[in-house]
């Protein structure tokens, strides 16, 4: 029994009377979900709604010679069969580039392939019918003649002269390249006592959201207006894109996002089949629904990672890290994904490697290449799992090489806690981090010395257990530096509108969105605290471009830190407005009053002066009784965007304890720990659950998940029976701890917590496996996922 009790407030500065900041308040929207009364997009049904299914290319690369529609058009229930060329008349194509990633290039992408299909799974024709089953039946009758083209499948040879170029319009298969050379790398390596050089492989995996991507588009010809129900993380971004590519004004497009069955970065991108669904609704003047089935999801939801990294570290005998060097090659499919691009992850890898450490010498190269596989783009923790795994594996390999304890080597190199602001070799700016305090907390929490003793004892009995660690930094609360400066119409600011109703309750409309992480709860906690009502009297409205302030939504761990601050400021503003009215009614100075627990009180004594319900009654129904010149303004909006720092970096450290069966190669996870510092903790339980869920997602990448492709670009395991995901029986209990270093950029001081788990877990697992196998003389493992086969190969047993 570990039901978490309500924790006391963490921070006194925010501890207004009856503050909810720092308390594990249950989320207000949970009962709906536990009762099966949520409304996911896959549940949405509208009058006259039709269903679309897509004919998808069976080839990785093929010319579309002819599409025979006649048989499909005559099939039962079919409303329309639409090709890419026909849909191109309704919707314009897009190109996924950003100007601040210099030189990044891509080719125009259409909602449905025109003339050429560039990956297995790309939609080449749409069939709209009365039911999804009828649409799928008719897809079988669409007669597509393909001329197969050579497929580029191996990133390693994608840039070779003899490899065909996927898009003739952009000359080669290079999407983006970045080089960085800081300090004196060659001299540093030359002066090292030990150098470790190795190659890592981070194979492709994908999000497998439990609810697949889903969209219902409803073009009302009478209103000339498009209403889109979409499971998305960024409703305003999608509103902008739908409007742009359908040549509509923003006010003609409304995007509604209700319950979303998991996102993790999968649902923050532009998908051709979703764009096509919106275009089809416009074309057919009726609602059209598309829900990806699981088989489609595997070949169309963005894939993640796919990096080959050659890496090198230098170290002195005293443990000083002298230099890091990496060469990253990543294959992204045939298009850079719109509008965030597929260059961001490699760019992040270059930015983040070596980030926790003082080492000033760092050289990096990253090349992002096109391939004829499904598109690759940002997924939970973008670049961090790669950079952390590379850095932390190098650190532990170096520690082993010089015979130093891996935590001790970290202590000697981590950025000192007392020396902020600081900057990494790659130029990242850190306001305040707590690497050493986090490490000390972890050491004590896990009983490191005790586990080392247990490990040594068990090894004598032929039981091979390993301990692995990962210190990490994490990008959160992004400013416009992430996308806006590169020309993407993705807002980094967010707004909140707080409104007093006629009974004295408040509603908060926020631009951030709920994907299950608890944004509604956090916004409710913050607004209730700032304004001064019990949380039961707060209703939060999200996911509606008609009724929420313009905002970025949920990505890069920004909802609590940015959306929360906007709600805090809006709550305070409404309190000030209400106290003006209260002052008039009570003939008191507003500054002598406060709002606490749903009533206007005397600030000094806390004595209740006026219930909010009475104030609202007078303000709304008897404004004639207020003094002349007093106009009640009972709705307040505030916006917030981080300005002092491009990103609010968080930090932390994770540890994994596991056992490797050296006969079967199976890895059994025994326990996992994480200490992280996300600044002010608004809701401890929600932070811990973000960490835990993120860790398990990282474990999936480390042990199970791999989108397997053959040499013709065919995905081989695109179903949940063959593509393994973490299930309950294999996962460990996870213990979380915290250090709190608030950001001074906002009053709340909250940074993000959504991705730290995923950032560090794969590195931990890798290091723990290698720690377990080290006494057996196994070659260090560096290719994820660490399947039993790879473990046995490392042991030389197969």
């Amino acid at each position: 029994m570990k039901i978490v009790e309500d924790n006391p407030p963490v921070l006194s500065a925010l501890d207004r009377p009856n503050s909810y900041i720092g308390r594990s308040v249950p989320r207000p929207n949970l009962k709906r979900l536990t009762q099966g009364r949520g409304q996911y997009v896959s549940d949405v049904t509208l009058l006259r709604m039709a269903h679309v299914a897509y004919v998808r290319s069976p080839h990785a690369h093929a010319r579309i010679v002819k599409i025979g529609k006649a048989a499909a058009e005559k099939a039962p229930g079919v409303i329309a069969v639409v090709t890419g060329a026909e849909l191109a008349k309704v919707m314009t194509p897009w190109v996924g580039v950003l100007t601040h990633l210099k030189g990044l290039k891509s080719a125009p992408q259409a909602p449905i392939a025109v003339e050429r299909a560039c990956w297995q799974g790309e939609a080449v024709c749409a069939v709209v019918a009365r039911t999804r089953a009828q649409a799928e039946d008719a897809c079988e009758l669409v007669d597509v003649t393909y001329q197969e083209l050579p497929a580029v499948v191996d990133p390693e040879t994608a840039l070779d002269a003899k490899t065909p170029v996927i898009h003739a319009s952009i000359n080669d298969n290079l999407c983006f390249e970045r080089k960085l050379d800081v300090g004196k790398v060659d001299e540093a390596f030359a002066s090292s006592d030990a150098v470790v050089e190795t190659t890592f492989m981070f194979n492709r995996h994908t999000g497998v959201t439990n609810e697949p991507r889903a969209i219902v588009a409803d073009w009302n010809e009478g209103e000339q207006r498009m209403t889109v129900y979409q499971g998305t993380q960024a409703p305003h971004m999608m509103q902008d894109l739908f409007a742009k590519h359908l040549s509509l004004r923003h006010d003609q497009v409304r995007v509604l996002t209700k319950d979303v069955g998991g996102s993790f970065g999968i649902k923050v991108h532009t998908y051709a089949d979703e764009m096509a669904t919106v275009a089809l609704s416009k074309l057919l003047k009726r609602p059209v629904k598309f829900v990806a089935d699981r088989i489609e999801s595997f070949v169309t939801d963005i894939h993640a990672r796919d990096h080959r990294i050659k890496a090198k570290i230098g170290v002195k005998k005293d443990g000083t890290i002298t230099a890091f060097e990496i060469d990253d090659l990543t294959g992204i499919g045939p298009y850079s994904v719109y509008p965030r691009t597929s260059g961001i992850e490699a760019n992040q890898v270059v930015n983040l490697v070596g980030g926790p450490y003082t080492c000033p010498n760092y050289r990096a190269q990253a090349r992002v290449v096109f391939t004829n596989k499904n598109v690759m783009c940002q997924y939970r923790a973008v670049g961090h799992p790669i950079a952390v795994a590379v850095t932390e594996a190098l650190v532990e390999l170096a520690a082993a090489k010089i015979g130093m304890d891996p935590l001790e080597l970290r202590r000697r190199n981590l950025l000192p806690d007392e020396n902020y602001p600081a900057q990494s070799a790659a130029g990242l700016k850190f306001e305040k981090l707590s690497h050493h305090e986090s490490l000390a907390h972890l050491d004590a929490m896990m009983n490191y010395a005790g586990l080392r003793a247990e490990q040594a004892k068990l090894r004598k009995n032929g039981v091979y257990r390993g301990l692995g660690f990962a210190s990490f930094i994490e990008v959160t609360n992004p400013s416009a530096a992430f996308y806006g400066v590169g020309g993407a119409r993705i807002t980094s600011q967010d707004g909140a509108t707080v409104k007093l109703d006629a009974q004295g309750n408040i509603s908060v409309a926020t631009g951030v969105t709920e994907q299950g992480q608890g944004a509604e709860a956090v916004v409710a906690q913050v607004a209730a605290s700032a304004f001064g009502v019990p949380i039961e009297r707060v209703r939060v409205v999200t996911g509606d471009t008609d009724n929420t302030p313009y905002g970025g939504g949920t990505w890069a761990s920004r909802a609590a830190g940015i959306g929360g601050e906007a709600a805090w400021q809006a709550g305070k503003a409404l309190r000030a407005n209400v106290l003006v009215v209260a002052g008039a009614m009570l003939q008191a100075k507003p500054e002598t009053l406060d709002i606490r627990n749903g009533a206007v009180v005397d600030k000094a004594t806390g004595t209740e002066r006026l219930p909010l319900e009475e104030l609202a009654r007078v303000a709304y129904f008897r404004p004639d009784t207020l003094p002349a010149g007093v106009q009640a303004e009972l709705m307040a909006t505030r916006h917030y965007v981080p300005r002092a720092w491009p990103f609010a970096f968080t930090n932390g450290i994770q540890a994994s304890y596991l056992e490797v069966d050296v006969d079967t190669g199976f890895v059994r996870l025994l326990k996992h720990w994480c200490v992280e510092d996300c600044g002010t903790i608004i809701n401890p339980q929600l932070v811990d659950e973000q960490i835990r869920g993120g860790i398990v997602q990282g474990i999936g990448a480390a042990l199970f998940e791999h989108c397997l492709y053959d040499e013709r670009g065919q995905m081989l395991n695109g179903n949940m029976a063959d593509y393994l995901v973490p299930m309950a029986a294999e996962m460990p209990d996870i213990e979380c701890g915290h250090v709190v270093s608030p950001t001074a950029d906002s009053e709340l001081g909250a940074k993000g917590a959504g991705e730290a788990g995923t950032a560090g877990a794969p590195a931990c697992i890798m290091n723990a496996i290698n720690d377990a196998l080290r006494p057996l003389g196994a070659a260090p493992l560096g290719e994820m996922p660490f399947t039993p086969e790879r473990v046995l190969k490392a042991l030389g047993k197969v």
Partner: protein
Amino acid sequence: MSDTVDIRLSVNGERVAERVDARTTLVDFLREALSLTGSHVGCEHGVCGACTVRVNGQIVRGCLMLAAQCDGAKIETIEGLSDAGEVADLQAAFEQRNALQCGFCTPGMLLTAQELLKRGGVPSRDEIRDHISGNYCRCTGYHAIVDAVEAVAQARAGGKK
């Protein structure tokens, strides 16, 4: 052979008579014909468990059973269990422990957990993990779900003393 089948069954205690396509799965029938959207479609090949419902007292995957097979059956879904109050304590524990994030797996998870809890006793954490290992949750990492199920098992066992 006809493409359609007439079925009569009980769904959450209500009598239902419908003509269904022979190929319609149970979960599609519940969602589309009866608007019982609490049972979710996650994979349609029997792996994820989001479509878990009860048929004649036993949990089944609604995507692996045809509606036509349910003639004469007694079907229970999350909506029925919720309204009857059968899993009220389990739902409360999930809410208090935040044992759900997006909530898409939750109806199936609750039905699966309830099957274990109905056996009585207090299962170990490993037994709980093993029992729910056919229900995929991408959000929580499972730890919180195990906590919630364990807490309810203990509470129910305590209540019987």
